[in-house]
């Protein structure tokens, strides 16, 4: 059984995955923080990524949906905003990245970028004294990635 103990291991594990697997794990990362948003469009978009038989057209539509959700949730320039209300925005950004082709214009791993956006969503909600919430999201991500890798092995993918 593979376990992932820290972020270096997590990052290394994500880097070894092909884009389809990365998207799948990334979608699971976003599902883990989906409770922070009421935008039902995102759940549907993620379900497309997780489905093994999703077509290119479906993936494209899912990506567009997630991007629209992110733009709807962004803090408008000059508008009265509250950091603790920004979680839905970061969840939507994470879903946008998870449904995208690759990490847009960067050399970073798609799934790692999604992990970071999900952590940012938790960071918004954490109070000044609460260091635990973000740590919980991090350990959940390590567990999700390890379980995914193990399930792939069980199914003879490696």
């Amino acid at each position, binding site marked *: 059984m593979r376990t992932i103990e820290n972020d270096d291991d997590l990052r290394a594990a994500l880097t070894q995955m092909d884009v389809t697997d990365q998207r799948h794990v990334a979608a699971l990362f976003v599902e883990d923080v989906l409770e922070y948003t009421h935008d039902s469009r995102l759940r549907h978009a993620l379900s497309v990524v997780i489905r093994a038989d999703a077509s290119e057209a479906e993936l494209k539509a899912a990506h567009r949906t997630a991007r629209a959700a992110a733009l709807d949730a962004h803090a408008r320039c000059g*508008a009265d905003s509250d950091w603790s209300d920004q979680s839905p*925005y970061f969840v939507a950004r994470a879903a946008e990245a998870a449904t995208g082709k690759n990490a847009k214009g960067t050399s970073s791993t798609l799934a790692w970028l999604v992990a970071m956006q999900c952590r940012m969503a938790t*960071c918004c909600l954490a109070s000044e004294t609460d260091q635990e919430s973000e740590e919980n999201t991090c350990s959940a991500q390590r567990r999700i990635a390890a379980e995914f890798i193990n399930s792939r092995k069980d199914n003879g993918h490696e």
Partner: protein
Amino acid sequence: MSSASIEKGIRMIREQIDAPIASFFSSCVHCGMCADACHFYVQTGDPRYTPINKVEPMRRIWEQEYTLWGRIKATLGLSRKVNAQDFEAWEELVYDGCSLCGRCSLVCPVGNDISDMIRKIREGFAVAGHAPEGLVGATRRAVEIGSPMGVRLSALEAQIRHLKHDTGLDAPLDQAGADYLVLLSSMEIMNFPEYLEAIARIMQQAGKTWTISSRAFEATNSGVQIGVSDIAAELVQRVVDAAEELGVKTVISPECGHAYTAIRFEGPNLIGRPYNFRVQHILEVLEEFRQQGLLKTKGKETDRMTFHDPCQLVRKGGVIEAPRNLLGMVTDSFVEMRDHAEMNWCCGGGGGVSANERADELKSKAFNQKKSQLDELGVDTLVTACANCRITLEEGLERNDMDIPVIGLTEMLADHLVEEPGKGGET
């Protein structure tokens, strides 16, 4: 609005009419070239959006009070004084229909700085109570909270904690004697926290010390956007006080166009004295690092990409080569838009337009100018260096069903940095 407010507005406009503005009015040859340079006019075809028409109330005050012929006309009842209806009618032209992009000033054959005139007429509209609600709220929050979006220090501290936790990098607060004082825009803090990580990684690689002031971390200057110099001066002063107290050598304006011109060019005039530190846009700093060999990157993007020049940076700051040199480090597939560099078209959201919800429809019409530039280029990725441009572009692309991701240049460079063993941080 009461007639007393209108009188105040007229008085304020009169005070703005200095020798250059008077000469601009007397030298206008009514050629209309400024109209063809303005995305609001070009995309609506509405002559009211002709740049020089946006300052017509100011021209009338100048003519009636400072020219002989104007005085005679006024005495004979041949001209009408500027009144409340004019303020009503021009408010939309002065705020919603101008992003202070400066393109009109660049093409005027007699050198009229129309953009600056519009910036100045806003002073009169603001005191007359004829400024958009969104900008009024943003300005109030900037004064009271220190951020036009009401972003408090606790939000920034949360991001710094996140940065340390996930990357091991630090964003030091209030470190006296640092090389650089980094300013942030509220837009970056709220929507693009990746910028903070990018700065931390770049500074680490370059071996420079940097800090953020807990008392003055905000770069955006709503006072300049709404057109109230007293407030603009107060906001600049906060940064100056922080920079001097911390004894930094350079203040870095972030990826925000108007913040840059406000602190760099308007700032010393607003507070009435030169600074004892340098002010640079982040791209200017990165270009210096590149020239000094302090910026080491690896890998190249394969996507076909172009750069959207933020108006303030390129037209007012003349920062043209820096983004192109920096992009050259990370891509071989860079293509230029037809009108680029100092002739670039605005995204439509600058000058407070984005903060003004009422202007949304007009802003999206103006965006069609950018759309046509992008349509003929067919790029995969759009890079820029202003958080407000970035969201305006994203919104415009989305509305027009164009699947082009928009990326901040600083972030993109940070993502290509060579990882140096023992230096921590993420790739």
